[in-house]
């Protein structure tokens, strides 16, 4: 009994370490890029308050190449640095970009396809910012200027910091 318990506890620890380790790796080895955000609002019962963010790169022109994929397609988005921020440059369903020093590639999911407008809505997995209870409000203010610093490593992004009107937001 005892042995079985410790095997299970070890597996649980390894699982937690594995998940945390993946994201730590991105934080340590990743390249930091700044993105402009547009916030919306809700709440998560398990993890307290959060603000939902949208980005300029959340809506991008669809790539020229054909894809059979209807939803949740893996998409590679090439960004380039313009001034302080990284902005959209090109997107592809194939992993074909080799970014220069002032560029970065994000891997996202194209979640909706407007055939006629040739536009994609893309989620990258860092659209939620978890904050302490009641702290989400300022981020929801439409007048506020919200920017996020994201670490990217091998296309995998992790949200690192949130800035509200140029100030680091806790």
């Amino acid at each position, binding site marked *: 009994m*005892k042995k079985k*318990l410790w095997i299970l506890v070890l597996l649980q*620890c390894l699982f*937690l370490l594995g998940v*945390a380790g993946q994201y730590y790796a991105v934080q340590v080895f990743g390249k930091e890029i700044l993105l402009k955000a547009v916030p919306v609002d809700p709440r*998560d019962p*398990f993890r307290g*308050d959060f603000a939902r963010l949208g980005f300029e790169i959340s809506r991008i022109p669809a790539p020229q190449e054909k894809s059979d994929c209807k939803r949740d397609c893996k998409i590679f988005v090439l960004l380039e640095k313009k001034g302080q921020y990284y902005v959209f440059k090109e997107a592809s369903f194939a992993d074909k970009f080799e970014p220069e020093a002032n560029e970065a590639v994000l891997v996202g999911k194209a979640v909706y396809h407007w055939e006629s407008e040739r536009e994609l809505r893309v989620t990258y997995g860092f659209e939620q910012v978890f904050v302490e*209870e009641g702290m989400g409000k300022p981020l929801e203010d439409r007048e506020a200027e919200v920017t996020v610093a994201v670490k990217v490593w091998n296309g995998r992004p992790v949200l690192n910091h949130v800035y509200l009107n140029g100030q680091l937001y806790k």
Partner: protein
Amino acid sequence: MNRHKWLHAELDRWKEEGLIGEPQAEALKSRYPVTSYETTSLMMFFAALLVGIGLIFFIAHNWSEMPNLLKLAIIFAGMIAVYGAGEYLRGKGRSAIGLSLIFLGTLVFGAGIFLIGQMFHIVAYNAGALLVWSIATGSIAWVYRNPFIMLVAVVQWALAVWFQFEEYHRTSLWFLLLAIPYLFVARRWESRLMLFLTWIGVGTGAISNLAYYDASELWVYPVLLAVLALSFTFANSPFLPMFYYPLLMSLYVAITLQATLFREDWLRIDPSPESYYVYAVILLGMVVYLWRSQLTEYLPIAAIYLPTAGIDYVEFLNASLAIAVPIYLISLGERKREKSWINHGTILFLISVFALYVVNAWTLIDSSLFFVVGGILLFALAIVMERRRRKLLSSIREVE
């Protein structure tokens, strides 16, 4: 659950019939002991559950000041300490508190998963996290052959199915596959409650997959009603037990939906006229059938399946139905001397009250206060309802 209770009864009979002697019967009885939920150990499990939920909320709301690595270290240390203490106490023969600490260990593991999600602001994490959590809890429950921990694992899995529906509006096969080991365990441990909960999860998954292809949410009602109608068709036949769980599942889902989902502001899509026609046909068919079979006393139960969307005062009407139908079930059980109607009526009543409370109070009061008030409310109601239920059951026994 009363595992092996049947075996003990059988052994007594065999002994009386002279098939086996006293020593053999006793030896077999000690090999297959009767395990059941005992009040004190249940209370300890609930205490562990509350501590665990408190921990998850604490992490969710208050931990932004601490560095991430320290948070992780606390989770790991806490998890190992709680599991270790549990196993140690169990070894010392204090199995109730030992097992409840081991159960707390599974909750700390869950808190760890959500902590990591929060630390790195990971989106779309709930469903997968609950699935992993359920597997972890289920494995611990299996190792200790503990029905309560296994029930929690099943609930976590059912929640995972529900959250996946919430996040992606469908259920993947992988999520539903986990129902197989749980159904297997439920069958093997002869736990009807576990079987029932697993069916609820499967039902939610199946319904969510169907709903994904059909934009309207209201079609669910005709399906639930059809299940009810079908089970009534077998009301007086030996096939009824086969439909017992689907029937109960249909009732539980309908009542929870009525109490929570179908509120004016939550209804995004107007029901199509066709769905009303389908609905009317099934409803009418059932009324006619019940009337002709002289089963009209079951008819008021169908009120919970009334399509109330779009009607004035829909929230008030739904709340009244969600409260009235379970009360009717209890009174029906009393009249027909059916214990299961009384038991399920009681549970359904509690679910209705709690669901109504969740829907109406969540937005009004602070979340920690919400849980405390909810807990006290539920506790008080449970005591009153339990007293009434026992009284009814004992009166039935007296008559028998």
